[in-house]
């Protein structure tokens, strides 16, 4: 029999037909929708006079544009309000479950998906957001799509896609204390560059990923897109099954048993081939931080900012990036002053991330020179933060908690980092102006963020671990 990769198994199972010399017609099991990339797609359906084909496979939440304070009040920004209304209207018109502002299940699309069992192994999942790759942590094929494709999936539950190439990244060894899944991902991107996996679907394999929690695997898969990959995935195992069992939208009873038969086959066959393979040693990974304007511009915290000729991109582009950040070749990042700390987003806005943050700040005080925004990824995360007593610890250290949403990850709402200010951020993109016009972003793990929040500058988090 043909040896298949994990990716092949899931992809091939969902191909309805192949277009001659063209893309595959791929059936989509579950489609997640949010307010920013969907209105024009719904408009398209209206113009064609058609309805959503499978509303029961479609799930909508509001996240990109929502305020993170006073969510009980009407949304102030009239354009945001209009977009949020449009989603609500579209969802009700087409009979789609809708978790709007204030709904107990509301949160960032890639956080609530797994929380409620919309994300299951072996499924095809799409959403009009590039970080849909998050769901690959469960062994699903999950990828971001554009609005025309959102319209495609709403109207036909299918998408036309050429089958991507396959890449495997294997990391064995053990991570040193203080090295988190975020660091592993930033490390990989720094090695592969932001375009290193373009055209590929990535499988993460090896001890390091095996021993990660589901939350950690989500962080890694989430960041796949930052090296250009269509998506990333990890073979499901006992941890995966345990995580999803009993959640609202996971199969129950007989359907569960049947699903398990399929899910247990989801691994890469011995000897199956990849178009590209990379191997790294987990023991060599340090806590990472970015110093430039794309996620590939990251270094281990004890390293120096590389010289232009050591980095991807032309020297001019590299210099432009350093100028924007106000940094120089050869400098150390340790001790750099910062102004803001943002903990949140679909990359690091889950309960585990807030636990890690709290662990570091416990018994310490927020530095006076920093503004800290702690934004849970969902109401469920928010509740857990309170229930587990983390909030009390955070408040004792001078922090406050905001309400869930994408927030300063893309700064579409009011949570904008001001021009020229530095933010240590647990999100996923450090592009120019990503967190507000003129903002400067340093991507890092929740514990690096915590270290920055209590010291007011870039600090190796390992120095604060007991």
């Amino acid at each position: 029999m043909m040896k298949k990769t994990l990716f092949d198994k899931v992809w091939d199972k969902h191909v309805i037909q192949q277009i001659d010399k063209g893309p595959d017609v791929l059936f989509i099991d579950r489609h997640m929708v949010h307010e920013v990339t969907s209105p024009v797609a719904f408009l398209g359906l209206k113009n064609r006079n058609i309805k959503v084909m499978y509303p029961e496979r479609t799930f909508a939440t509001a996240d990109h544009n929502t305020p993170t304070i006073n969510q009980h009040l009407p949304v102030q920004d009239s354009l945001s309000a209009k977009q949020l209304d449009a989603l609500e209207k579209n969802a009700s018109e087409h009979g789609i479950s809708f978790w709007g502002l204030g709904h107990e299940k509301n949160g960032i699309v890639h956080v609530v998906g797994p929380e409620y069992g919309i994300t299951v192994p072996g499924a095809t999942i799409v959403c009009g957001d590039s970080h849909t790759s998050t769901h690959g942590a469960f062994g699903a094929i999950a990828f971001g799509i554009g609005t025309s494709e959102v319209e495609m999936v709403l109207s036909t539950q299918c998408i036309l896609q050429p089958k991507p190439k396959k890449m495997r990244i294997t990391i064995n060894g053990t991570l040193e204390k203080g090295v988190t899944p975020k660091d592993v991902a930033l490390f990989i991107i720094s090695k592969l560059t932001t375009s290193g996996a373009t055209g590929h679907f990535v499988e993460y394999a090896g001890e390091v990923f095996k021993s990660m929690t589901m939350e950690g695997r989500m962080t890694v898969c989430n960041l796949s897109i930052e090296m250009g990959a269509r998506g990333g995935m990890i073979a499901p195992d006992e941890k995966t099954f345990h995580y999803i069992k009993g959640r609202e939208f996971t199969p129950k009873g007989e359907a569960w048993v049947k699903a398990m038969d399929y899910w247990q086959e989801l691994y890469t066959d011995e000897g199956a081939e990849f178009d590209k393979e990379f191997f790294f040693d987990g023991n060599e990974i340090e806590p990472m931080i970015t110093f430039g304007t794309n996620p590939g511009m990251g270094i281990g915290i004890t390293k120096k900012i590389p010289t232009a000729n050591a980095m991807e991109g032309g020297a001019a582009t590299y210099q432009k990036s350093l100028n924007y950040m106000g940094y120089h070749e050869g400098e150390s990042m340790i001790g750099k002053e910062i102004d803001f700390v943002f903990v949140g987003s679909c990359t690091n806005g889950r309960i585990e991330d807030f636990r890690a943050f709290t662990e570091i700040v416990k018994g310490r005080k927020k530095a006076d020179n920093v503004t800290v925004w702690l934004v849970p990824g969902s109401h469920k995360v928010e509740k857990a933060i309170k229930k587990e007593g983390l909030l009390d610890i955070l408040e004792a250290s001078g922090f406050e908690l905001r309400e869930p949403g994408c927030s300063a990850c893309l700064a579409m709402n009011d949570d904008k980092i001001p021009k020229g200010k530095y933010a240590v951020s647990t999100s996923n993109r450090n592009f120019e102006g990503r967190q507000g016009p003129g903002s400067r972003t340093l991507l890092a793990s929740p514990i690096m963020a915590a270290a920055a929040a209590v010291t007011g500058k870039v600090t190796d988090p390992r120095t604060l671990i007991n």
Partner: protein
Amino acid sequence: MAYDKFEILNSTGVPLPIENVDTDQIIPARFLKATEREGFGDNLFRDWRYNNDDTPKKDFILNNPIYSGKILVGGKNFGSGSSREHAAWAIYDYGFRCVVSSFFADIFRNNCLNIGVLPVQVSPEFLQQVFFAIESDPKSTFTVNLAQQKITIDSTAATETFNINPYKKDNMINGFDDIDYLLNIKKNIKHFAQDTPI
């Protein structure tokens, strides 16, 4: 959404020799609040193009009247980052019909093809020649022939072929979109869905 047919494009080009141009630069997130697909061209490259007080930045290429045309020429890894189709809409709405680069990010490339902007991927050497042609004479024209999958620098007659999926090529030449195709095979889809648990 159906779009204009694309056959042969003959135009001058606007050079943007920057690498890794991400979609947050092409259209910053704060301009994604529309519920219709109009007017995005005004905010194309907003933060590179305008100062905080909305006055144009003199040194940005789109504000330099000697450069114009329907072809945008960008550095390597063009369109990385967010999946926002708004980036492609902004490029289209501004008046570009073709983007030339030596490398495109996946989702951006798809988005372009879906709305009638042709991404033309050329070799790094050819890209340099294109930049050079514009630099020496901003009135230099280029011919993009989709049927033959060729791009030509008219002044030097240098030509390179480019790849495009034959299905997508057909769609662009005829102005068809994928949904038309999928709606035609709805029966097969329904059949398939029946056997596929949610």
